[in-house]
């Protein structure tokens, strides 16, 4: 078999994407010329040619040979790539897809983090140093949306895909090819965002509020298309998880024997499959307003900008829980295994996650207390929003109860998981100020909000993500990471994070509003401090990146179960065999059998424990 570079899936995908784009744009141009209009119109051309290019990309990258032929009654080619090439092709293997997601989004995380560093250079002093206002907005908007995508997809897409089938004793996800298709929609999102920045960016942030997003630069169009595509990724992924967990659990693995991480993935999937389309729909409406002259959000045609805010936050508040619920799951999972103690109040924690899902859909308008919406809506949304603190409190109970009287093994993943508890506490508590109408009137759109959501998303979810990354690194790669570098990364990141965001609460209260390239000199000293702390935070990722790369290529081989953990993924080799389980295990107890509390699985190193009890 020849593997010339020209036959590589990505090259074919790009080729057909370009062909699709050019053909569609030429067709549009031809029709426009015939109608007496300009040949090229950026908005119209992108809106029409991009979906065609996307189709070309998908088909070229492997959908056509491995799936598309069946649609027309033909026979699909077998999946052929092996070794490292699997990661660069259309692979239906959930473990390959998990690593594809994780690596892609960690690269994007570092890229968006770099944008954050540039932002902090600009904000170190009052006045404009590095950027023009326009460039600042572009950097801020890119940082925002990319980090949102990272937060939504790394834990759920990366770790969820890799771990959920293993944890439930399945050989793959329910829809392996759909899973691959979902992943291969991600590169176009990244490419669109990068092209958009190259075109000068868009200045409406990740929220893209109209009417600004209907009158600003064309980069906005690409942003909208990227986010709509990303919405499809999220929806298809969510559906896949729900069907997988519903129908593919191993015999004996009842709902309340699922590892808590699986509950986090289910809860997040429920939200992402049911709410994501609101964001996509809102951005589609913006495109319609821009391209066809409808007036969803144009006051002159009877539209209303507030309609956008309602639709947007209908998704984007629940989206926060798409980010943190898998984070809760991963952190609780690690706290239990690294404390060698059963997860405390397991059913309450699982119930709390579902409670958060239920409440998440009815609290969106707390983002709109100062938007000029009907004041009659303020009180109900205040009440509903504050109620979320109750299920969230149960997650804390579970975390604290788990570590109490445990045998805490303070390795890097555990440190990150404990930091998650601390950070999310601050994030959660400061959220109460923003759900409270009177305080929100002052704090809305200030750096207090910036600090708050960085505490929940970065301090919460991203810390849980790194906990998960170190914890499951040996399982993913079959190699151990360097504990020393891991601890350096942790302490630098932890301290850098606190020193960056604690002062932001203060400047926010004081009156510094967010999303500004420049600010009054009165806030200068704090911002200088924040910038230096942010550089410390940023520098910690040098250690992280080095650790990951060096360990993946040259680290010592990892045992099957280096943490002596009790869940199923640790009962198979590291990395797991191609089909996970030679025999589907039979489950006889819950996943946290520590301290002689009735272990579900044996926990000697390696070996598939429960398989001996019977096949599938």
């Amino acid at each position, binding site marked *: 078999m020849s593997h010339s570079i020209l036959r590589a899936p990505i090259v074919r995908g790009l080729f057909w994407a370009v062909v699709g784009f050019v053909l569609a744009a030429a067709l549009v141009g031809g029709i426009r010329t015939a109608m007496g209009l300009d040949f090229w119109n950026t908005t119209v051309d992108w809106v029409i040619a991009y979906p065609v290019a996307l189709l070309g990309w998908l088909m070229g990258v492997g959908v056509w040979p491995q799936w598309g032929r*069946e*649609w*027309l*009654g*033909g026979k699909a080619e*077998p*999946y*052929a790539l*092996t070794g490292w090439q699997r990661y660069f092709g259309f692979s*239906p*293997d*959930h473990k390959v897809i998990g690593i594809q997601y994780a690596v892609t989004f960690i690269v994007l995380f570092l890229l968006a983090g770099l944008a954050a560093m540039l932002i902090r250079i600009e904000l170190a002093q009052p006045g404009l140093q590095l950027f023009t206002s326009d460039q600042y907005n572009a950097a801020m908007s890119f940082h925002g949306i990319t980090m949102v995508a990272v937060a939504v997809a790394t834990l759920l897409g990366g770790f969820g895909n890799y771990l959920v*089938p293993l944890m439930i004793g*399945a*050989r*793959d*996800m*329910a*829809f*392996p090819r*759909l899973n691959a298709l979902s992943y291969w929609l991600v590169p176009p999102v990244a490419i669109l965002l990068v092209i958009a920045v190259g075109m000068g960016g868009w200045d409406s942030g990740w929220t893209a509020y109209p009417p600004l997003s209907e009158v600003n630069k064309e980069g906005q169009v690409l942003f909208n298309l990227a986010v709509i595509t990303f919405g499809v990724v999220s*929806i298809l992924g*969510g*559906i*896949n998880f*729900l*069907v997988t967990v*519903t*129908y*593919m659990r191993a015999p004996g693995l009842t709902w309340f024997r699922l590892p808590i991480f699986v509950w986090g993935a289910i809860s997040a999937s429920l939200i992402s*499959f*049911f*709410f*994501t*389309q*609101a964001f*996509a*729909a809102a951005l589609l*409406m913006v495109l*319609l307003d821009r391209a*066809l*002259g*409808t*007036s*969803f959000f*144009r006051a002159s*045609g*009877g*539209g*209303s900008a507030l*309609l956008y805010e309602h*639709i947007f936050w*209908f998704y984007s508040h629940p989206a926060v829980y798409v980010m943190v619920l898998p984070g809760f799951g991963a952190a609780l999972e690690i706290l239990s295994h690294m404390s060698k103690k059963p997860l405390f109040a397991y059913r309450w924690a699982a119930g709390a996650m579902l409670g958060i899902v239920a409440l998440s859909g009815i609290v969106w308008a707390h983002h709109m207390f100062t938007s000029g919406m009907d004041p009659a809506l303020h009180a109900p949304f205040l009440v509903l929003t504050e109620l979320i603190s109750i299920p969230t409190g149960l997650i804390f109970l579970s975390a604290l109860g788990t570590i109490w009287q445990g045998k805490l093994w303070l390795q890097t993943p555990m440190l990150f998981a404990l930091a998650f508890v601390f950070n999310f506490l601050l994030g959660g508590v400061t959220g109460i100020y923003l759900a409270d109408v009177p305080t929100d009137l002052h704090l809305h759109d200030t750096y207090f909000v910036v600090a708050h959501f960085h505490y929940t998303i970065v301090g919460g979810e991203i810390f849980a993500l790194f906990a998960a990354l170190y914890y499951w690194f040996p399982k993913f790669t079959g190699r151990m990471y360097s504990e020393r570098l891991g601890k350096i990364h942790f302490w630098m990141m932890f301290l850098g994070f606190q020193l960056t965001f604690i002062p932001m609460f203060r400047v926010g209260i004081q009156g510094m509003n967010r999303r500004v390239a420049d600010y009054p000199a009165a806030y200068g000293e704090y911002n200088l401090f924040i910038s230096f702390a942010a550089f410390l935070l940023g520098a910690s990722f040098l250690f992280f990146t080095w650790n990951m790369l060096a360990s993946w290529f040259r680290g010592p081989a990892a045992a099957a179960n280096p943490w002596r953990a009790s869940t199923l993924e640790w009962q198979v080799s590291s990395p797991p*065999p*191609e*089909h996970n389980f*030679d025999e*589907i295990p039979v489950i006889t107890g819950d996943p946290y059998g520590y301290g002689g509390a009735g272990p579900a699985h044996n926990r000697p190193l390696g070996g598939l424990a429960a398989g001996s009890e019977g096949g*599938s």
Partner: protein
Amino acid sequence: MTAAHSTVHGAEGHASPARLLRMNRMGLWLFFASDALVFALLLSARFYLDGLHTPPEVKQILGLVMTSILLLSSLTAYRAETAIEHGNIARGRSMLLLTAVMGSVFLAGVVMEWMLAEFSPGDGYGTAFFSMTGMHAGHVASGVLLLLMARRQASAGKFDGGGTRAWGASGIVMYWHFVDVVWVFFYPVLYLIH
């Protein structure tokens, strides 16, 4: 496990056909729920932007005819599905084609309506009308393509024997009905209320 197994992945690897069918079915219904929300958002936007107002220029007869065609196409789609499930591939093929033709007629109706419309996309009702019918027509168009695809698969012998093997056709027909259900709500909201 050896490389020879590498084409057998996940569900296909160990689930029974009946289990696989249930999984496909649940996945499709979840997709419907998800897609329905897009339509629900557009529908709520219609009330948010323009309340209950419907301009008198709306073509009532055309709307009724289009609605009837779409509803009838659901019957032919149903006949196609039933025939294929019972192994009657020939009838299934002709019914799929008939459904696709009726869907195309519906699409022609949408185009005609857009050209005849006496309101602009720039006002409240027009915004709702063009976006709702446009989004729906996009689904109908993809449905027509899918129906033709199902017909092609039927010719290739994919559904021979019916039963669980008919899922491919059944899923596409379900999608067609789903698009019809959307129109059941869109029709009164766009044409009849006032």
